[in-house]
C-alpha cells in the first residue's frame, strides 16, 4: 500500500495497517492508550511558506510565511477581518471546504507539505485538530461518545476507551466536572464545559498540532481561565496555534506571536512576528506598537 503521508523516520508507526508502537508516550512520560493505526504522537512543528487564500476572485490572505515551532504556543493577533481565521483554516485544510475557494503556497507539517500530491485532507485533519469559536459538541451524543467521536470518524481503533476518555477529559480540565455524567448528552453542559469537551474531543485523536480559533471569546472568565490553564499544560505535547482578539490572553499563554493586518480592500498579511515578550515590549513595526497598545483594534 502506498504511503501517501510519510511521518518522520523517528516514529515506528507509519501507516494505519502497521502494528502499534510503544505503549508510553516519550514526550510526556504518561501512559497513552494503545492505538492501532495512530499517527506519530507528540508535538511537531508547523510552518507556512508564502500561503495565500482566495474566496472566489477575492484574495484575502497574501504571502504568509510563518514558523510555528514544535511544543510552543503561537498566537495570531490582529484586528478583525485580517485573515487570521482564514490562515488558521489553511493550516488544517478546512479552507478548501468553502465552495469557490483556492489557495497557494505550502504548509509544512514536520517538513512535509500537507497540500502535496496524494495527501488526503482527512488524514491531515487527524494530525492537526481544531477547536472553534462557538463550542460545537455533538448535542445528541453523550459526553463519552463525543470524546470518542474523533476516533470513530477517523477510523482509529483504541483498546481502552474508558482510559482514553478519562485522559482526554483530564487534559482538557473537564474530568472532575463530568466524571459522573459521562452518559448525559453533550448539549446539556454549560458553554465553558462544552468548549472544554470540544478540546477533549480534539485531543482524543492525539493530534500533533491543535488550532484554536478564538476559543474563549464566547465564554465567561472562569472558563477562560481553565482553558488557558489547559493550554499551558498541553503545550509540550502539542503544538498550539491560537487566534485571539484578547491581547492579554496572547501575553499570558503564547510563546510567540504573529501580528496580522489588512488594509482596506486589500488582502491580509503578517506585519511582524516574534517572541511574545519582544512583540509586546519592543516591537519593531510601529503598527504593531500601535495595536498592542490599544491605539486601534
Amino acid at each position, binding site marked *: 500500500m502506498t504511503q501517501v503521508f510519510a511521518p518522520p523516520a523517528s516514529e515506528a508507526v507509519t501507516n494505519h495497517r502497521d502494528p502499534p508502537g510503544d505503549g508510553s508516550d516519550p514526550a510526556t512520560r504518561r501512559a497513552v492508550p494503545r492505538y492501532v493505526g495512530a499517527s506519530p504522537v507528540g508535538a511537531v512543528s508547523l510552518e507556512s511558506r508564502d500561503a495565500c487564500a482566495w474566496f472566489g476572485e477575492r484574495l484575502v490572505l497574501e504571502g504568509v510565511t510563518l514558523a510555528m515551532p514544535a511544543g510552543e504556543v503561537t498566537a495570531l493577533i490582529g484586528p478583525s477581518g485580517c485573515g487570521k481565521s482564514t490562515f488558521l483554516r489553511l493550516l*488544517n485544510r*478546512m479552507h478548501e*471546504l468553502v*465552495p469557490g475557494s483556492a489557495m497557494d503556497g505550502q504548509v509544512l507539517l514536520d517538513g512535509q507539505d500537507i497540500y502535496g500530491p496524494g495527501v488526503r485532507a*482527512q*488524514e*491531515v*485533519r*487527524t494530525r492537526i*485538530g*481544531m477547536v*472553534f469559536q*462557538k463550542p*460545537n*459538541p*455533538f*448535542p*445528541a451524543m453523550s459526553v463519552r461518545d463525543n470524546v470518542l*467521536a*474523533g476516533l*470513530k*470518524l*477517523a477510523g482509529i481503533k483504541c483498546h481502552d476507551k474508558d482510559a482514553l476518555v478519562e485522559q482526554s477529559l483530564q487534559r482538557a480540565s473537564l474530568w472532575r466536572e463530568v466524571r459522573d455524567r459521562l452518559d448525559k448528552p453533550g448539549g446539556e453542559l454549560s458553554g465553558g464545559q462544552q468548549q472544554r469537551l*470540544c478540546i477533549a*474531543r*480534539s485531543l482524543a*485523536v492525539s493530534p500533533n498540532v491543535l488550532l484554536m480559533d478564538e476559543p474563549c471569546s464566547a465564554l465567561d472568565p472562569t472558563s477562560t481561565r481553565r482553558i488557558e490553564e489547559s493550554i499551558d499544560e498541553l503545550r509540550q505535547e502539542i503544538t498550539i496555534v491560537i487566534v485571539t482578539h484578547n491581547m492579554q490572553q496572547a501575553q499570558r499563554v503564547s510563546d510567540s506571536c504573529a501580528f496580522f493586518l489588512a488594509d482596506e480592500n486589500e488582502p491580509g498579511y503578517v506585519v511582524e512576528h516574534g517572541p511574545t515578550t519582544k512583540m509586546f515590549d519592543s516591537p519593531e513595526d510601529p503598527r504593531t506598537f500601535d495595536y498592542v497598545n490599544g491605539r486601534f483594534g
Partner: protein
Amino acid sequence: MDDLVTLRAAGSRSPATRSKRAIVEHRPRVDVIFDRVSLGAGLTVLVLLTLVGVFLLYQGRHTWTVLGTSFLTTEVWRSGGVHPHIGVLGLLFGTIVVGLIAEAFAVPLGIAVGLFIAEFASKGAQRILQGLVDLLAAVPSILFGLWGFFFLSGTIVPLSRWLTTHLSWFPLFATATSSTLGTSFFIAGIVVSLMVIPIVASISRAVFAQTPPSEKEAALALGATRWGMIRTVVLPYGRGGMIGGSMLGLGRALGETIAVTFLLPQVPLISAHLLQSGGATIAGFIASRAGNVTTVPGLMAAGLILFVLTLLTNLVAASIVSRSRSGQGVEL
C-alpha cells in the same frame, strides 16, 4: 424634603400588593369581520373533511349493514346477482403491497437524491436539480400510467422472467407456471415509486439543508470523510424528516389511482407472487369501475377505508416531522 418622605411612606405599597392593569382592547370593526371571515375559511376545511367521511359512510351504509365484517374479510369482488359477494380484503392487500414495493424503491433513492442535492451538488446545481425533482412531481399520474404500461412493463418483463426462472426458490419471486408477467405488483410498485421519490427527496433535502453547519465543521475538523460527517451529523439530524417524508410518500403510494389502473388488471387477489400478473388496489379498482357502477355502496365503503388509511398515514407523518429536531421549519 420631609413632605416627600411622608408622601412616599403613605403611598408606598409593597410589591406583593401591586396589581396588574388589564388592557381592554376595543378592536376595530373591520378586524372583527376579518377574524370571523378567516375563521370561517378555516372551519370550512374542518367541515369539508368531516363531510367526506360522513358521506362516504352514509352512501356505503348498505354494505356495512348487510355485509358487516365480512366485507373486511372477503377477498373477491363478485358483483353480479342479487346478493353481491364483495369484500375489500383483496383490494386492501393490493394497496398495501404496491405501497410497500413503491416505498422499498423510493425511500433509498429519495433519501439519496435529497442527500445529493443538499451535500454533493454545487450551489447553482442545487436549484436546477430541485426544480427537476419538482418537475417529476408535476408529471400527471396518467402519463406515468401510459409510459409504464406501454413501455416500461415490456422492459421489466424479461427481468421478471429471469428472476422467476432462476431465483424461484425465493418465495416472492415464484410464479405459477406459464403466467404472464406484464401487469404485476412488482411493476406497478416500480412505477408508483417514481411518483413517491420526489416527495421523499424534497423533504429529505429540506431537513438535510437545515443541519447546523457548526456540527458539520466539527466532524470534518476531526478528520472525518464526507460520508463520515454525513453519517454522524446530517443523517441523525434529519431522521425525523426522512421518516416523515417516507410516510408521506407512503400515503401518496396508497392513494395512487390512475397509474395502477394501467399497471394492474384490477381483479382483487391476495398472493405472494409479486412478479405475476394480477391484483388490484382500492383506488385503482374504484377508478376502473367508474362509468360502470354496480355495487355503489360497496365502492363507497372501500373508498371510506382508503380515506381512513391515507388519513392516518398522513397524520402520523406530519406529527413525526413536526416533533423532530430538524422538522420545525419544514413544510410538508
